């Protein structure tokens, strides 16, 4: 029998972290409502002028005002577009490929960069391939994306330090932030302690300790996002802050997708999970495993946040989260990981 799903968001019942009440609403939604209810009158959320305050401290003081992380998807493309055209900053653009990013996504990023006439750093590596394989082979419950994000964030900090860039701009959506809007800034949106992340975070911690730390190849691999920040500060001497313009302006993709379509000729890619995203191929496997292990993926968490924030309907979220790909994509990914294909 499949788990009950919260009747407001798309998170399934997953005790002890995610619990549904008799009316079918989850504790995460209840917590969100309570936070809203208890918000201080001066808690105005994040405003665009707050974003400007941050960037104005650094504008023109470095060769590049910011380092924009660009996947080629709608959110990072719109973030880059805002940075360049709306806020008139001089960005350096950084695209990271761990070997599973489809050529189509890279091409989209390149088109955007060319249209905007900004400098571009492209980094491709197979360094994490063995680690990904280990996750699959050990049948660990660790979710691939948070582990991957540790590495690409460390790489991003390294590049930011290399080019002496004071701000790292991501395309993270409002749904990808957790906790209160204010704490988001101080923790670079990487707070993985909320209830809906607890089980995944614990699995990550255990996997990192048992499988990664013991592997000489990954001895220096950061264990947590806090460690990433520490390394960035100590080793790279980087004080760069991470933020996303999407946190500071009202609305969501409904507002910015038409803009980047018109201004940059941006289009959705043919294949990605969830629908209308531009995530790597490994993400199909990562999300599938997460759903098998927990009943939900990190995208269910993001979509649930967006539902609570009124940016997407529950029905739309359920539709976007439906994984209706054939097994070929999983076979492709497993093949790349040198694991025998298991799907037909």
């Amino acid at each position: 029998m499949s788990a009950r799903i919260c009747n407001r968001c798309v998170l399934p019942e997953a005790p002890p972290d995610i619990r549904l009440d008799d009316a079918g609403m989850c504790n995460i939604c209840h917590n969100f409502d309570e936070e809203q209810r208890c918000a201080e009158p001066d808690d105005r959320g994040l405003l665009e002028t707050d974003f400007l305050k941050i960037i104005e401290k650094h504008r023109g003081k470095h060769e590049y005002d910011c380092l924009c992380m660009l996947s080629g998807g709608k959110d990072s493309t719109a973030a880059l577009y805002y940075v360049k055209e709306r806020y008139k900053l001089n960005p350096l653009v950084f695209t990271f490929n761990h070997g599973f990013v489809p050529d189509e996504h890279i091409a989209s990023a390149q088109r955007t960069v060319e249209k905007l006439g900004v400098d571009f750093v492209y980094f491709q590596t197979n360094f994490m391939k063995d680690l990904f394989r280990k996750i699959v082979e050990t049948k660990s419950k660790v979710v691939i994306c948070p582990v991957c994000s540790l590495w690409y964030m460390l790489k991003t900090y390294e590049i930011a330090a290399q080019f002496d860039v004071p701000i790292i701009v991501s395309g993270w959506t409002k749904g990808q932030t957790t906790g209160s809007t204010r704490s988001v800034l101080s923790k670079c949106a990487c707070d993985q302690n909320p209830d809906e992340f607890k089980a995944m975070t614990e699995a990550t911690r255990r996997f990192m300790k048992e499988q990664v730390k013991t592997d000489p190849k990954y001895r220096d691999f950061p264990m947590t996002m806090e460690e990433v920040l520490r390394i960035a500060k100590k080793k790279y001497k980087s004080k760069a802050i991470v933020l996303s313009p999407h946190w500071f302006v009202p609305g969501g993709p409904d507002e910015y997708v038409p803009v980047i379509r018109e201004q940059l000729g941006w289009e959705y890619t043919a294949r990605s999970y969830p629908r209308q995203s531009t995530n790597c191929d490994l993400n199909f496997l990562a999300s599938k495993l997460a759903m098998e292990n927990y009943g939900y993926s990190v995208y269910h968490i993001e979509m649930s946040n967006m539902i609570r924030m009124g940016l997407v309907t529950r029905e739309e979220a359920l539709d976007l989260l439906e994984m209706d790909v054939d097994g070929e994509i999983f076979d492709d990914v497993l093949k790349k990981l040198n694991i025998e294909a298991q799907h037909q």
Partner: protein
Amino acid sequence: MTILGISCYYHDSCAALIHDGRVVAAAQEERFNRDKYSPVFPIQAVNYCLQEAGLTIYDVDEITFYEKMYLKFERTVLSHLAGYPFTLRNFLDTMPLWLKDRLTVSATIEDELSIKRPVRYVKHHLSHAASGFLLSPFERAAILTVDGVGEYACAAYGSGSGTAIELRKEMHYPHSLGLLYSIVTAYLGFRVFSGEGKVMALAEYGEPSFLDEFRKIVHARSDGSFELDTSYFSFNRGDRMHNRRFEKLFGSPRPPGEELNDRHRNIAASLQRLTEIVLIDMVRHVARESGEKNLCLAGGVFLNVTANSRIREESDFQEIFIQPAAGDAGAALGAALYLYHSVLGNPRMPSLKSCALGASFSDRAIQVLLRNRGVRFRAMESDELVAEAADRLAAKQIVGWFRGRMEFGPRALGNRSILAHPGDPEMKDRLNLIIKHREAFRPFGASVLREHMAEFFEQDWSSPFMLFIARVHAAKIDAIPAVVHVNGSSRIQTVTSEENGIYYDLIEAFRERTGLPMLLNTSFNDSEPIVHTPEEALRCFEDTDMDCLVIGGYLVEQ
């Protein structure tokens, strides 16, 4: 050319934006931070105005502030010194506000908006005057501004011609009609800024039997100027501004919440009568001095619809224009207009026909909210919505009406309104008790089709911003009891097809069903600022006993 106007630090803080020769947005901060009459720096309103125009602060060429803070500070210090040592405590309480916020406006703007622009300060009453004249339909007009107090001025008059404004005379603090009204409002146990309207409503239940007493403290001259006898007041000396001498004259003050009695009602009536007398004298004097045919009024005192209507009837001016946000919120817009037209010489923009200058929300955003909240709703075409809402209103249902851009100023004019049948004799009590949770003596306004106004009212003129009252024909009072005040008048908004679109269609549809070309219209709120977002509208709808809600293109039932 893009100009941002700002008002704040006293009450009704506000931001307004002029871009490409028109007012693109204006909104009070209270609608965002949900603190009624909020005085704080209007950071959310600024963000909204810029985003509405698709701009950032970098696109703003000029920033204006609605008063000269150093002049105001000078007046404050001098008036405290005059009352020393009794004013010391108040002085010490007040100074941190000045040092932290008020004297550092430029720095605050630079800090909050991350922009280095010289801030242009426009005198308080000049800001009011500009908000009245420069949005009026008049090429030239006399101007009268009256409020609590600006820097020194509490009232001013002059004239406008083309883009030029000249204020010729001022009345200075503490001789202030607005201040007197607020002092008596507090004396009668109501909250200053929100209670003045209550006193005005209460006045109609009393007799002006304290007029002689008021004349003892207000030494009025025939030109409308006057002096307050300050021996009845204790300015800058504590929480209350009247003193024992005042209480000897009028009796003890009414504690908030205490039952109202005839003395309270009579004091209110006397204050209102005195206000009207003084204002009419002022207006007559301005008419004589200026020789103009048209008059523009601005300042918080001209939110007094009863006084406005007497001025309209009893003055020699042919036409009168009052900008919908006549109080300090409108002064933010006035400061921007003054800079744009009078200082920079840009040609006049079309007169203000609609105060829908606030945020709107797409049907998509509304539908997301409704679906995620599990609210049952029906999507309907505009004509279907109008017909359905009219049917329900005719059946004496109370309808929340949330469509289009939020209104600028204190009135809801058909975009953020609660609507009801004006002919239901029980409607007034129903609304006051179960929806608005407010005093039973407060009347409700009416939105009436302009072309049908004369059928129900003795007057036949336009009042698009609900800033005037009209007397109901005696024979029609029983037909519209829910919108008739105890004195036989109604506060009215005249509605035209050109300016009000679907709201006009709704009232017309109601007229077809009932024969009444009007709806009871009250602001969409319950003891809070008027709702701003669909979420706030839905919450207010769910927390009260409205029968249905029209929100964007959707109908929601309880």
